[in-house]
C-alpha cells in the first residue's frame, strides 16, 4: 500500500518533506501492526517482510542528498518503523527499552531480593572463653596497618588462607560472644568521648564546642565523611546551597571523594595509644553488624572513628554500617555511595565488596554531581 506510487520521491525537498511528515503522523497514531501496514494476525515472516519493504522506502540514506530537515524527518519515520518492528519481533533493542522503562519499580523489587530478612545463621550461644590461638592472631593482625595486616594473616599462617567471609564471620561471632557476655559495655561505651563534630546527626552532643573544620575555613567542599549522613530526610543539608561552586571539571565529583583530608577535621581526646580494633567497642560494633543493627553499630563506630581518624579499617566499617542502614530503608543510592566509600577506605573489605556487587546489579545507574 505504501509502496504504490513512489513518484513522490522524485519531488522537491518540500514535497518530499511533506510526504514524510504525513507518514510520521500516520505512524504516531498507529499500533505496531498498522504502522507496518499489517493485519493483527500477521505471521513472523510477514512482519519481517513488511519491515524490510518499508526500510527500503523510508531509510534516511534514501534522502542523503536532500536538506538536513528532510533527513531528520526520515530518521524519525524510520525510528518509528523500527520501533514497531522490534515490538512485534521482540528483538534486542525492544527488550532493552522494556527493562529501562521499569526502573521506577526496581527499588521495591531489589529490596526484597537483596535484603533477606535474616541473611546470616542465628548467632551461636554465648561462649565466654575463646581460645587463645585465634585471639592471638586477631590481635596481631589488628596491630598492623590495614593492608599489611591482611597480608600478615596469610603469610604467617602456614595453612591456606581461609576465605574472607567465614573468617570475618568468625571474628564477628567471637566479638558477639564478648558483647553478650558483658552487657555492661553497652552502658559504658557510647558515652565516652563524644566529641565527634557532626552538624547533622541528632545524637551529637558536642557540636557547639567545635571550631570550624579546615575545609569550612577554606571555603571548600566538605570531606566525604561529613557529608554522609545517617538519615535521608529532605532539606537537612543546609550547606549545599551556600557551598561555593567549583569549576565544572569532569573529575570533580570523583576528586571531592578522593581528596579527602588525611585527617578528620576534629580530633577527639582519648587514648590513641590503645589499638582501637582490639577494643571492646570495636568488637561490640562487629556484633551489632552481625545482628543487623546497622544504626547502632554506625553510632558506635562513628565515635570510634572520631577517636582514631587514622584507622582506615574502622572508617571502612563506618561506611559499611551506614550503607546497610540505607539499604534497609531502601535508599539504595546512599547505600551505594557509602559502600563505595567503604571500599575506598579499605579496598579489601570483602563484605562491602559483596554488598556493593549485589546492589549494583539491581540499581539503576546514577549520574555524578558536579560541584
Amino acid at each position, binding site marked *: 500500500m505504501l509502496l504504490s506510487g*513512489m513518484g513522490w*520521491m*522524485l519531488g*522537491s*525537498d518540500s514535497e518530499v518533506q511533506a510526504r514524510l511528515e504525513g507518514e510520521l503522523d500516520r505512524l504516531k497514531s498507529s499500533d505496531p501492526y498498522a504502522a507496518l501496514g499489517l493485519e493483527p494476525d500477521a505471521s513472523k515472516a510477514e512482519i*519481517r*517482510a513488511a519491515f*524490510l*519493504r518499508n*526500510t*527500503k522506502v523510508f*531509510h*534516511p*540514506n*534514501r534522502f*542523503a*542528498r*536532500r536538506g538536513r530537515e528532510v*533527513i*531528520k524527518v526520515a*530518521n524519525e519515520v*524510520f*525510528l518509528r518503523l*523500527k520501533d514497531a518492528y522490534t515490538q512485534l519481533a521482540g528483538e*534486542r*533493542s525492544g527488550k*532493552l*527499552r522494556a527493562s*529501562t522503562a521499569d*526502573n*521506577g519499580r526496581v527499588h521495591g523489587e531489589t529490596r526484597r531480593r537483596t535484603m533477606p530478612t535474616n541473611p546470616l545463621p542465628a548467632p551461636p550461644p554465648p561462649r565466654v572463653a575463646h581460645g587463645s590461638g585465634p585471639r592471638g592472631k586477631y590481635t596481631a593482625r589488628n596491630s598492623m596497618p590495614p593492608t599489611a595486616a591482611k597480608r600478615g594473616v596469610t603469610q604467617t599462617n602456614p595453612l591456606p588462607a581461609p576465605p574472607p567471609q567465614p573468617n570475618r564471620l568468625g571474628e564477628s561471632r567471637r566479638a558477639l560472644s564478648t558483647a553478650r557476655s558483658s552487657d555492661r559495655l553497652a552502658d559504658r561505651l557510647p558515652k565516652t568521648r563524644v566529641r565527634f563534630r557532626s552538624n547533622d546527626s541528632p545524637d551529637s552532643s558536642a557540636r557547639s564546642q567545635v571550631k570550624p573544620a579546615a575545609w569550612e575555613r577554606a571555603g571548600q567542599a566538605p570531606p566525604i565523611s561529613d*557529608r554522609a549522613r545517617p538519615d*535521608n*530526610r*529532605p*532539606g*537537612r*543539608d543546609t550547606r*549545599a*546551597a551556600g557551598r561555593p561552586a567549583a569549576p*565544572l571539571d*569532569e573529575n570533580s565529583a*570523583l576528586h571531592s571523594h578522593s581528596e579527602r583530608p588525611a585527617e578528620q577535621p576534629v580530633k577527639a581526646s582519648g587514648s590513641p595509644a590503645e589499638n582501637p580494633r582490639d577494643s571492646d567497642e570495636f568488637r561490640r560494633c562487629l556484633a551489632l553488624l552481625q545482628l543487623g543493627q546497622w544504626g547502632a553499630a554506625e553510632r558506635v563506630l562513628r565515635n570510634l572513628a572520631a577517636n582514631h581518624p587514622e584507622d582506615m579499617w574502622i572508617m571502612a566499617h563506618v561506611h559499611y554500617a551506614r550503607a546497610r542502614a540505607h539499604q534497609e530503608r531502601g*535508599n*539504595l*543510592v*546512599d547505600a*551505594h*555511595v557509602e559502600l*563505595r566509600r567503604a571500599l575506598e577506605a579499605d579496598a579489601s573489605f570483602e563484605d562491602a565488596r559483596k554488598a556493593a556487587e549485589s546492589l549494583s546489579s539491581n540499581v*539503576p*545507574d*546514577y*549520574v*555524578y*554531581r*558536579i560541584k
Partner: protein
Amino acid sequence: MSSSATKKIIGIDLGTSNSCVALLEGTEPVVIHNQEGGRTTPSMVSWSGEDDIIVGAPSKRQMVTNPTRTVFGIKRLIGRKFSSPEVQELASSLPYSVVSAKNGDAWVRIDNETHSPQEISAHILSKMRRVAEEYLGDAIDEAIITVPAYFDEVQRQATKDAGTIAGLTVRAIINEPTAAALAHGAHHEHDQRLAVFDFGGGTFDISILAIESGVFEVLSTSGDSQLGGDDFDRVIIDFLADEFQTRNEFDLRTDAVALQRLKEAAERAKIELSSTMTTDVNLPFIAAGSTGPIHLQRQLSRRELESACRHLLDQLGSPCEKALGAAHCRPEDVDQVILVGGMTRMPAVQEKALDIFGKPPSKGVNPDEIVAMGAAIHSGIMGGELQEIILLDVTPLSLGVRVISGKMSVLIPANTTIPARESKIFATIEDNQTFVAIEVYQGEAEMAAQNRRLGRFILGDLPRAPRGQVRVEVSFTLDADGILEVEAVEHSTGREASVTIEAASGLSQDEILRLAGKTRGY
C-alpha cells in the same frame, strides 16, 4: 530528483597503504585508473623542495631518498591523541616525525611546519578526486568515503573533515566491510549470510551481514583498529635488523634512510612470500662499517615469516568469535566469507579465515578494489539509481554516559542498528543536587575515562530533593550519519536540555576552511 542528483557521487576507499576511487556507471561500479595507470594509489604524501607536494606513486618512488619528508600510513594517526599508547608505539618506528598539536592530537612535522592528519589525508582525497574528474571530464564535489568499521566518532569526523578540506561534500562515511558486502551482494538475487574479513594495512575488521530481499543488514561488527599489514612489516624489519645488529653491531633502525630501505624491502618480501616459498632480501651498502660498506643479503622463507608473525595471526581469532557471538551465528550459518584488504593475500591469513569459519573464502573478488566499488554502490542507494537495495548498518562501539564511580552506563550498545534511539533513567547522588552533568562517551571499556569522550552538557535547576529521588531521563538518538543527539529531561519539572554531538576532529571550522583554500591551490 533534485538538481544535485545529476552529478556523480564518487566512492573513495581511503586506505592505510593504498586508496582507490570508483563511481557508478548505470548500476555498475567502475574503478578508475589514476594518471600513472594504477587502479589503486599509494596513500603517500611527500614534500619536496619548497612547497611541492607529491601524492601517490611518485611519492612512493622518492621515499627512499626523502624519508623524513614522506608520510605514509597517516590513517593510523587520524583522530588520535599524541599521548595515546598506539601513537606512541607507532611514532617510534616511523621515519617522519610525529608531534603533539596544541590540542593534544597527533600531527606530523615536516621541516619546520606541522600538518594535521586531516590535511595530509585531504591531499590523498584531492588526488582521488582529480583522478575521477579526469575520467569523467566533469567537476565532482560529492563523495562517500569508507573507514574501518572500528573507527570511533572522532576518527570518522576527522575523515569527514579531510574530505571537506579536499573540497568534497562528504555524503556518507561508511564502513569498509559493509561496503565490500554491498559490492559483493548488489547483483546477487538470493538471500544469504556473509562474513567480511577485512585485513588491510592498518586495521582488521570483521562484519557479519544478512542479505534479505535487497536489505543488507549488518548483524555485528568487530575488529582491531591497531592490527594491520604494517605490523607484519615491522616484525620483518625487527627480525632483519636484530639479526644484522648481532652480526655487525650496528642498529639499522637508528638510520632513517636505512630504515626506509628496510621497510620497503620488508613489505616487498611479505608480498612476494604470498606467492613464493622463499624470497631474497638484498640491500647493498645498507651501512658503513669500520672495514668498509656492509650489505644485507639474506634469503627469507615463508615459514620464517609465518613463525615470526604467529602472534599477530593469533590476534585475528578473537574479534571473529566476538562478531559471531554478537550476530547469534555459528560459523556454519555463514554462507560466504569475503576477504578484503591486501593482507588477505597472505596464505597464513587465508588459512586462519578457513580455520575460523570452516569454509574456503569466496574467490573472484579483488580485495584491493571491492571497498571502493561498494562505496560507489552506496552512492547509487543515495542517488536513486539503486532503488532495490538499502543498507542497515550498526554502530560499532557503545555509546553511554559517565556515572557513579567513573563507570560508563551504556545507552546504545555496540552493534545496534542505526538510526537508533534509546533512553535510560538516572538519579542524583547528592541531596539537593541542583544539576547533573551528562558526559557522553564512546567505547567498550567499563571505565568511562578509558573510552573516547564525545562531549558533555549540563541539566540544571533540578528540584531540591534528597539524593536518588530526582530522576533524569537521558535519551540518545543516533542518526544514519552517526550524528548523536542527546537529550535529558527531569520529569517532575519538565526541565530539559539537549545537545547535538558531532564529534570534533580537532580542527575548527575556520581551520578547515583555511586548509580547504590552501589545498585547492595544488
